[in-house]
C-alpha cells in the first residue's frame, strides 16, 4: 500500500480522511494522494504480475484484495438499516445514528483490536480519527459515504462452508479466510471485549431505534428478522461479488439460529456501556415505548376492551414505571434494572387482568356467568365484557396461529442460492450437492399438489387484528367493564376483592439469572393462557413475562408484603 514517507515528518503512518485522502497521523499533514489512486495501482500491478507469473499466481490473486471482517459487518448494518427504512423508520437512523454508533465502536475496538505495525496503512474505515471529537453533536459524515468507500475497495474472496463444519477444524491449522483477519478474529477470544457478531448487528439496530425512540420494540424487530423483512440470515449474499466468504468467515457471518431476545437485549446494554454513550433520549408518555402507549397497542391486539387502558395507566402510575427516569436507558448504570418495554407492557396487562378477574380458574368463570346474566338486561349501548366469550375467541385464534407458526418452523429454509465452500477442493462437491438439492426440491415440489410459493407475510406491527365491524361479536374493544365493576363510595372498583401473588419472594437475579421460576403446572390455567397469548405476540418464553409480572406485583403490593402475607387488596384510584 501507501508506503511513502511523509513530506513533513518523514514518518510512515498514514490514515485516510473523509475525503479519501491520505494524511499523516503523526503530524496531520494531508496529502493529495487518494485511496482510489493507490487502489488502481495496486490492482493493475497485480494484474501485470498475474499475467507474467502464470496461472498459479493468478489463483492467489483471484482472491483479490483484502477485506476486513468489520467491513463485512458494516455492509450488514447498511443492509439492515435500509430495510428498516423501507419499513418506515426515519432515514436519520441509517444516515446518522447507526453510522455513528458504528464509528464509535470501530474507534473503541480498533484501539484494543489490532497491533498496528508501523507503516501499515489502515483501511478506509478507521477514519474515526482520534482527533475528531465523537461526542460532539453536529456534522457527521453520512454512513453512505463510508460504505461507498469500502465498496470500492478491492476484491474479496470468500470460500467457505458452513459454520458448524468449521468447528471440526482445529484452530491450529492455518485455515484460510477470505477476510484478512478472519482467522485471527476468531482466535482472539476472551481478552477482547465485544467482538462483533451477527446477533450484535441486531443489538446495534435496536440501540439506534431506541435512541430515536422509533415505534418498534425489540420483539417487533426480531419478528421482522425471522419473517425475512430485515436481512440477517444469509445476508452475505448481498455482499458484492468480489467480496467472497471463505473458510472461517463463515463462522462469523453465517447464522444458523433465530436471534434470541435476551441475547440481543443484553448485548445492546453491554454495547451502550462499552461505547460510553450518554443517557438516551427520554422516554416520555408520548413515546410509543411508554407503557401507556404500548399497553394500548397490546390491549387492542389482544382484543381486550379499551376501558382496560384506564386500569393499566393506574397501575403504571401507582408503581411509578411511567417516569422518564425509570424508562430511559442510562448505559452503564447498574443500579437500575433495565427496561424491556414490550415485556413490561404485557406484564402490566396481565396484572390488571389478575386484579379484575383473579384468574384462579374459578372466579373468572363465575364472574363471567354473572355478567352474562346482567347482559340480558343490559339496556345500555354496548355489551358488558364477558371473560368466557373472550377466552373462546382468543383461544381459537391463538391455536390457529400457533399451529401455523409451528408449520413455518418446520418449513423454514436456511440455505440460500449462493452456495458456500470451505475450500477450493470442496467446491465441486458442494456445487454438486446443491444441484441435487435443487433437483430433488423440484421433483417433490411438483408432487406437493397445489404448491403455493411461500408468501412472505407483509410486515405488520399487528399480528392479530379485530374489527368492530364484525357482526359476529368477536371484537371486544368496545365492550364495557361495567359488568365486573361496582360502585363504592362514588368510585368504581373491581368486584373481585382478592389477589394472589405469583411469588412471595423474588429470586436473586444475579445468582440464578431469573427473578422467578415459572412452571406451568404450578399456576392456574387461565393465568397460563394469558401468558401464552402475550408470549406468542412477543415471541418470547412465558417465563419472561412471568418474571416481569412478579416484579410489578412486588412493587404494587410492596407495603403489604413488608407487613405480612395477606393477599387481600382492592385497588382504588
Amino acid at each position, binding site marked *: 500500500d501507501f508506503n511513502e514517507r511523509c513530506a513533513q515528518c518523514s514518518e510512515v503512518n498514514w490514515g485516510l480522511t473523509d475525503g479519501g485522502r491520505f494524511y499523516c497521523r503523526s503530524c496531520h499533514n494531508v496529502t493529495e494522494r487518494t485511496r482510489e489512486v493507490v487502489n488502481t495501482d495496486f490492482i493493475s500491478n497485480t494484474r501485470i504480475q498475474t499475467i507474467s507469473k502464470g496461472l498459479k499466481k493468478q489463483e492467489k490473486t483471484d482472491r483479490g484484495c483484502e477485506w476486513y471482517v468489520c467491513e463485512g459487518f458494516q455492509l450488514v448494518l447498511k443492509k439492515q438499516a435500509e430495510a428498516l427504512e423501507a419499513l418506515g423508520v426515519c432515514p436519520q437512523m441509517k444516515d446518522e445514528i447507526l453510522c455513528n454508533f458504528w464509528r464509535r465502536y470501530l474507534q473503541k475496538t480498533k484501539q484494543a483490536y489490532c497491533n498496528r505495525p508501523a507503516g501499515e496503512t489502515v483501511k478506509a474505515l478507521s477514519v474515526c480519527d482520534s482527533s475528531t471529537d465523537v461526542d460532539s453533536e453536529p456534522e457527521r459524515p453520512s454512513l453512505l459515504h463510508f460504505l461507498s468507500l469500502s465498496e470500492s475497495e478491492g476484491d474479496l474472496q470468500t470460500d467457505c462452508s458452513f459454520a458448524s463444519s468449521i468447528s471440526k477444524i482445529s484452530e491450529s491449522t492455518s485455515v484460510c479466510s477470505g477476510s484478512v483477519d478472519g482467522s485471527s478474529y476468531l482466535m482472539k477470544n476472551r481478552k477482547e471485549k465485544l467482538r462483533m457478531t451477527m446477533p450484535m448487528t441486531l443489538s446495534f439496530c435496536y440501540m439506534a431505534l431506541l435512541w430515536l425512540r422509533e415505534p418498534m420494540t425489540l420483539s417487533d424487530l426480531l419478528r421482522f428478522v425471522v419473517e425475512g423483512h430485515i436481512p440477517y440470515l444469509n445476508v452475505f449474499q448481498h455482499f458484492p461479488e468480489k467480496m467472497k466468504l471463505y473458510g472461517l468467515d463463515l463462522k462469523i457471518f453465517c447464522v*444458523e439460529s433465530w436471534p434470541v431476545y435476551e441475547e440481543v437485549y443484553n448485548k445492546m446494554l453491554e454495547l451502550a456501556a462499552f461505547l460510553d454513550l450518554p443517557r438516551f433520549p427520554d422516554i416520555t408518555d408520548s413515546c410509543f415505548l411508554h407503557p401507556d402507549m404500548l399497553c394500548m397497542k397490546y390491549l387492542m391486539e389482544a382484543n381486550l376492551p379499551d376501558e382496560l387502558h384506564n386500569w393499566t395507566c393506574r397501575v403504571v402510575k401507582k408503581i411509578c414505571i411511567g417516569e422518564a427516569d425509570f424508562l430511559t436507558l442510562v448505559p452503564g448504570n447498574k443500579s437500575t434494572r433495565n427496561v424491556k418495554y414490550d415485556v413490561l407492557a404485557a406484564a402490566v396487562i396481565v396484572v390488571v387482568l389478575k386484579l379484575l378477574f383473579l384468574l384462579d380458574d374459578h372466579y373468572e368463570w363465575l364472574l363471567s356467568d354473572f355478567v352474562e346474566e346482567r347482559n340480558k338486561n343490559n339496556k345500555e349501548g354496548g355489551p358488558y365484557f364477558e371473560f368466557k366469550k373472550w377466552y373462546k375467541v382468543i383461544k381459537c385464534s391463538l391455536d390457529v396461529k400457533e399451529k401455523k407458526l409451528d408449520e413455518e418452523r418446520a*418449513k*423454514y429454509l*436456511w440455505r440460500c442460492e449462493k452456495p458456500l465452500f470451505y475450500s477450493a477442493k470442496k467446491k465441486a462437491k458442494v456445487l454438486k450437492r446443491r444441484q441435487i438439492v435443487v*433437483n430433488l426440491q423440484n421433483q*417433490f415440489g411438483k*408432487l406437493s399438489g397445489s*404448491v403455493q410459493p411461500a408468501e412472505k407475510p407483509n410486515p405488520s406491527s399487528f399480528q392479530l387484528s379485530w374489527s368492530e365491524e364484525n357482526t359476529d361479536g368477536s371484537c371486544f374493544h368496545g365492550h364495557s367493564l361495567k359488568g365486573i365493576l361496582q360502585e363504592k363510595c362514588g368510585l368504581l372498583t373491581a368486584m373481585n376483592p382478592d389477589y394472589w401473588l405469583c411469588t412471595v419472594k423474588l429470586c436473586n437475579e444475579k445468582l440464578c439469572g431469573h427473578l422467578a421460576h415459572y412452571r406451568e403446572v404450578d399456576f392456574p390455567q387461565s393465568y397460563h393462557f394469558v401468558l401464552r397469548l402475550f408470549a406468542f405476540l412477543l415471541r418470547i418464553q412465558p417465563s419472561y413475562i412471568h418474571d416481569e409480572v412478579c416484579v410489578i406485583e412486588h412493587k404494587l403490593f410492596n407495603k403489604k408484603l413488608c407487613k405480612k402475607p395477606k393477599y387481600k387488596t382492592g385497588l382504588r384510584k
Partner: protein
Amino acid sequence: SSHEYKLNFKKSKEVCLSYIQDAMLQKQWKRAAEFLTFYIESLEKDFSTEYMGPSEIIWRIGTEILCHHSHSSMKEFISFIEQMKTLGVKRYLKVCLEHAFHLLCNGLIDEAYQNLSLAESWRFGEQTAIQDKEMKLIQAYRGLLDYYSWCKQKNIMLEHGQDGFEDLSVEQEMHSCFRKAAVNLKEIIKIPGVWDLFVKCYVDLLEFYGDHNEARQVLNEYAYNSKFPANPNAHVYLYQFLKRHGESKKSLISALKILHDIVPSHELMIDFNIMLQKSKKRKKRRLGLEVIFAALDYAGWKENVKAWSCLARQVKQIVISEKHLDWIKQEWNSRKDWWPAFHFSRYLAKRNWQENESLSYEKALVAGILLGKDCKYFKYVSHQGCKAQVKRFRILKKFVTKHNPVYLRISG
C-alpha cells in the same frame, strides 16, 4: 403447552421430519412431499455423525412417497433413485438392490435384471469389500432371475417336446441359465440366513438335473446347521424332498419331529400324526397323541375335521384297547381347564351341528370320552344326531355310553 420461540437449523429439521412422519402415517402423500421439499436442504449439512443421516432419510422417505403418490411415475422413480445412488457411496449397492426390487414389483423383470447385472460390475475401492454382503445379495437375486429364465426355457422345451419338436438352442439356453443360476444360488445359501426362496429354486434345479445327493445335502444343511436361524420351512422342504424320493418313514418322522417342536400348529401335523399312529413303536404312537392334541390347542384348527378325526380315531382306539389310558390322562390334564370352553361349549355344539355334521361327529366322540356322556357338547350333538336318525350318531351314543367309566378314570 408453551411453544418454543427459539429455533436453529437442527431443531427446525427435526420438526420438519416429524411433520413428514405424521403425514406419511396418515397417508397424506402430497403433504409429506411438501414437507420433504423443506427437509431436503439438510443434505448440504450431511456430516453423517448420526446413525441415520439426511441422505439416508431422504432416500427412504422419498422412496415411500414415490411408491404411494398417485402422480408419481416409474420415470420419476428412476430419476430419483439414480440421484440417491450418487449421494452415498456407502449405500450404493443397497440402493441398487431396492431399485431392482421396485422394478420387480412393477413387473419389469428385464430392467431389474439389467440393473442387477450393472450393480454386479460396480467397483469402488475398499467399498467393494465392505459392501460384500450386499453384493452377494445382488448376485443371488440375479441368480433367482436366471432361475426364472431357466423355468421359462424349460417350459418351452417341454412344450416342444410334446409337439415333437426338438430345439437345441432352447436347450442350450436353458442349460446356460442353469449354470448361472446355480452358481449364485449356491453361494448365497452358504451364508447363515433365511433363504427359503433361493433354497427351493436351487433344489428344484438340482433335482431336475438328477443331483439328488447335492440336493439332500443342501436341505440338511439348511435345516440342521445350528448357525442358521431356526426356520420351520427348512424342515418342511426337507420333509417334502424326502417324501418325494420315497425315503423311510423313520427319516420322515425325524424331519417332522423338529417341525412339531418349533411349530406345533403346522399343517403337516396331520400327516405326522397319521404316520405316528400307524407306527409299531409305542413311543411313536404316544408322540402322535401329543402331536394331535398340541395342534388342536390352536384356534386355527378348531374347525378342522381331519384333525378331529385323527384325534377321535386315536382316542377311540386307546379306549377300545383299554391300554394306555394314562396317555389320554396326561394329555388331558393340562387341557381340562380350558378345552371345554374352547371347543365343547353348547354354543359350539349348536354351530358345529348346523354347519358341519362331520365335524360335530368327530368332536362329539372326543368330548364324550373326555367329558363323559353328560357333557353339554355330547348331549346336544348326539341328541340332534339321533333325532335326525343319522346312523353313526346312534352308534356313537352307544359307544360313549358303554365306555363312560373311562371318563371317570381320565378326569379323576
